[in-house]
């Protein structure tokens, strides 16, 4: 293997590690004409299967994306009556870093209820909770209705692919959805089998 090949392999390795500013060059000889654009890692998240998500589902849907960074919107598909909160785990494929979570625009903020959003990485799982909080002093807070055929955003999870990869995002146990009925002022867990927990898949490639 000649020294030029060794250098090119080293440059490619640096690119994969994220040092995209390195221009690895190519062609023959130094001083060659033209600007060399290094390959960019681009991540594409695809929802499902099934897609679209069925009724009474909590699903992972593609959000905003740029290059290796991509968002996954956690959506709730109706008909869900009195949706109060959800706790679940998302298993990640290899070569994906979890960056952050965002509650902006979440439908469970409706009515100004206090809420709790948390997402923390443990190994290759993210423990997630997004829920309304019952009121202080015993004030009752009902859940939020998501009508049939409607889809509402619960929260957004942000990721970064770190290498070319394909893999699945799955929503696993323990997982639970709570509802709080405004008529009876009682709360209860939705049976796990009554909910469709729909994940997605990632493809990240250098383009």
């Amino acid at each position, binding site marked *: 293997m000649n020294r030029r090949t060794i250098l090119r392999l080293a440059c490619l390795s640096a690119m994969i590690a994220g040092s995209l500013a390195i221009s690895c060059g190519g062609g023959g000889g130094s001083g060659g004409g033209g600007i060399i654009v290094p390959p960019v890692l681009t991540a594409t998240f695809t929802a499902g299967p099934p897609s679209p998500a069925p009724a009474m589902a909590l699903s992972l849907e593609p959000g905003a994306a740029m290059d290796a960074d991509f968002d996954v919107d956690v959506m709730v598909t109706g008909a869900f009556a009195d949706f109060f909160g*959800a*706790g679940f785990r998302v298993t990640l494929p290899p070569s994906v870093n979890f960056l952050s979570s965002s509650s902006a625009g979440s439908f469970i903020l409706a009515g100004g209820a206090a809420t709790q959003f948390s997402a923390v990485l443990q190994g290759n799982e993210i423990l997630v909770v997004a829920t309304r909080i019952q009121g202080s002093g015993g004030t009752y807070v009902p859940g939020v209705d998501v009508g049939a055929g409607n889809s509402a955003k619960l929260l957004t999870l942000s990721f970064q692919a770190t290498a070319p990869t394909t893999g699945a995002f799955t929503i696993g146990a323990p997982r639970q959805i709570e509802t709080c009925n405004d008529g009876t002022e009682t709360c209860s867990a939705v049976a796990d089998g009554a909910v469709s927990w729909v994940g997605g898949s990632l493809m990240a490639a250098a383009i």
Partner: protein
Amino acid sequence: MAFTLVLTLGSANAATIYVSTTGSDVVGCGTATVSACASIQFAYDSEAISNDEIRVLPGTYNECVEAWGFPLYPASPPSLSDKPVQIVADAFVASGDNTATTIDGTGICDGVGNTALPTVTIGGTGAEFRGFTVTGGGRSGVFSQGGVAITNNLITGNASVTGGGIYVFAGSCYYAGDPVAVIADNEVTLNTVVAPTTGPIGSGDGGGIYVSAESNEQNLTPPIGELPCLFRGDPDITVNGNTVTQNTVANTNLDPIDGVTPLSSFGAGIYALTNSATTGTSQVTISGNSVSNNNVLTGTQGFGGGIWASTFGFGTETIEILDNTVDSNSATSDGGGISAWLTQESFGVHSFLVDGNTVTDNQAGGNGGGLDLLGFARDVGIGQGHTYTASNNDVTGNSSGDFGDGGGIAIEYETQRTTDDPALSHPNPADSLGFVVTGNNVQNNTAGLGGGGMIVSATANGDPDSEAPSCGIPLPASIDLDISSNLVLNNQADGESGIIPPIDVIGAGILILPTAVHTSRVTVNVDTNTVAGNNLDFGFVGGIEIQASTPDDACIAGNLGDVEFNLDSNVVADNSGVGVGGPPPGAAQLTVTVTNNSVTGHADQDYEAACANPPCLFAADPPPGNITADPLLDPVTYFPNVCSPVFDAGAGFFLSPDVNADDAIDGLDILAIAVSNGSSTGQPRFNMSTDLNRNGETDGDDLANMASQFGDICP
């Protein structure tokens, strides 16, 4: 006898009377700033009527103001011209500056070549004193009686025999209604109290602030020589948001009877007393104050370097000491930081709450470097009872005396029957009186002797007269002590090795001394505490020590009391010496129940099951139903890790935020709190397993606790 009240009512449109250093004390002065009076006293005496405002313009006023606001006695017949006024500094109103307007009694009433008087005396219902600097008083800076508001002043450099900076007597005899006094947002600093050594000698209390809430019985026909009490009201005093620093008390007097016993002084920073007649109610709330560097001077037997407060009377009395910051104060006797005493007799109903205070780096010459908590009930009956709770206090870095106990907290609790005469005491003795110590953080305190973190001494004595030959009829006298959910960490008990015989240290973490005399009962419940890292220089038990006593009675031999010691669900780890122990019960009637504890990591025994004179306190190490496993305490919070073996799903409650016990703090645990939030015991949504701090309700504190551990998973 019917009594006609003659009251001077305030005008619906209260006037403002101006005072200026450039003014003139002439009749009619003060209607405008340009025609201001020259002195506050003239404005009060000549121009003000009830509820007027005396607005004082910036400058220094060398005078001692008397604005009593109610009639002084003796006066025959008494005049009820009540003239309370508001004395307000204009500069404070304009810009919040309380240093621009000074009332200075130096050379006039400071007691140097003149009669010692307060710089400002103000009284009467609805009176107010606000926004001044007050100095040079010889008998307090601000002296007050009645329902007065004293706010936003700087009170400094005053002296007195009692109440150096501020003296408040909210008694009820001389004005109608319930006196409500507020002492708020003042800075009270560098004031001195020295008990007089000649004439009527007093105790010399309250270096910074002295408050007394007295509810007296109306008495219009007093005995000859006594003053009448015209009204009966229930006083309520609030001491809130003040900064009380560098005040002192001193007292060199001896008891005139024996000539030997030193008289005591109380409260170098703040002194507070409730004292009510049988049908009266009095209340004092001390909250949100910063109390620091106040000292009982050497040579004085003094209690309560920062705060001293006590109930005292026969009525319904309440004292609350809440959310204060108390640091670097000193007492020569007990209570370097706070001394809080509940003293109740016969028909009184008293309650005391010491909650949420931060008590640091205080020094006691006696017991209780941080907190000195005393509960005393004599001849108290069923239905009266009292409650004493010390909860959620941070007690750190305090020290008791070289021969004192309780570096952090010293608790002494006693109930007595002194007579079975129904004319002198309640006919039915109280079934049980209670003291609750819960949720306190007690760390890094030092005791000269025992109880580096905490000492709890409880005595129940149901024998009205234990001395032969006049033996009384014994009646039940019981005590229930609850010591729960406290964090007692890294405290030190020194012991005394330099004397002969050397004094061993006992109970570097918690020392418990229950005594039940003659058919009485003391029950001590110690549960869900974490006692770890406590150290003794030399001695035996570094964690929790109990020494029970059931002494015999001189009248009826062999009729001993009972002590019950219940130790449940505690974590006692890594203390020096023995984890949990005490001397063999011997002849004492002691019942020990120990369940669900994790005691581990002690160089000697974890549970003291081997001793020189068996049977020992415990039959085995560990006793059945207890463990010696590592509790896996978090190195910062000392809370057991979610994987800790101390969490047992079979126990009746959970402290772990792993509500569903699946070895993870995850979304399902958060959901459990989310749907229970805001509910309390007995309500449909309440879930006991989400009440992490066991206060009977699921609230933001539990959620915050769980959220802080969200994501913890056992391997």
